[in-house]
């Protein structure tokens, strides 16, 4: 068993209204100094030892992310 983390973030050029909403709310709540916020998704997967990196990439690319609008990264966490 291994823990795998897949991070999925909106592409830089894609508008991210959720991140923007957070960024514009921060100063109103008295938090200064945050110039940009982007919001994406984080997946934590429990993966059998024999699942290889290529399979994980395919899962990220075809399912967890939509490559038209999102970038993704896969990494295995140290146990």
């Amino acid at each position, binding site marked *: 068993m291994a823990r795998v983390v897949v991070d999925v973030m*909106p592409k830089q*050029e*894609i*508008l991210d*209204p*959720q991140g923007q*909403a957070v960024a514009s709310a921060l100063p109103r709540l008295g938090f200064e100094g945050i110039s940009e916020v982007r919001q994406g998704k984080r997946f934590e997967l429990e993966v059998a030892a024999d699942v290889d990196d290529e399979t994980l990439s395919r899962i990220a690319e075809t*399912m*967890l992310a*939509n490559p*038209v*609008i999102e970038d993704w990264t896969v990494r295995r966490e140290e146990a």
Partner: protein
Amino acid sequence: MTVATGARIGVVTFPGTLDDVDAQRAVRRAGAEPVALWHGDHDLQGVDAVVVPGGFSYGDYLRCGAIAKYSPVMTELVLATGRGLPVLGICNGFQVLCESGLLPGALTRNAGLHYVCRDQWLRAENTTSTWSTRYEPGAEVLIPVKHGEGSYVADEDTLDELESSGRVLFRYVGGNPNGSRRDIAGITDTAGRVAGLMPHPEHAVDPLTGPTDDGLGMFLSALDALVTA
């Protein structure tokens, strides 16, 4: 191909689909026979066209339409579009068609971050597609929108290409409800047979239960196309 009076239009139901009953009603009102298609079947039952209706397929938890694209019925549908089958994706159906690669771009969270249900004016931009011949060019119609993730996005090249080849089907007028790029409400594929639309024509087929009957034209257009085909 069958003539319109006997036309059979399939309506797909995924777990979590909501507007399938409405799409079936609209098909019936337009004079065709609705045929229920189940997500788990590798079978389009020989229908002449297909509507992929709105709702929250599989809960839309991962991303709208992301899981639905893998269902057996979608595999068949993608193959059948290659043979010229007309398909209309409404709302979640539009999202499914984009996720499946049948239409370009993607639908993202509404700019206002809220779900929006309202009666929305649209302008008919393309009136030669399978689903829009009943509309006058530039006609303005009133049809409900109801969605939380309907903001159409695509890269600039794709948007330019959609515009220049006349593949923008409808555009929002009188206010853009979701921040869609270039006010795009719906688009078609290159052949004009596969169409996707965020607003709900199936909820505008009878002024008793919708704001107008302006949506009926989409279903009638498809029937016309089936007669002449």
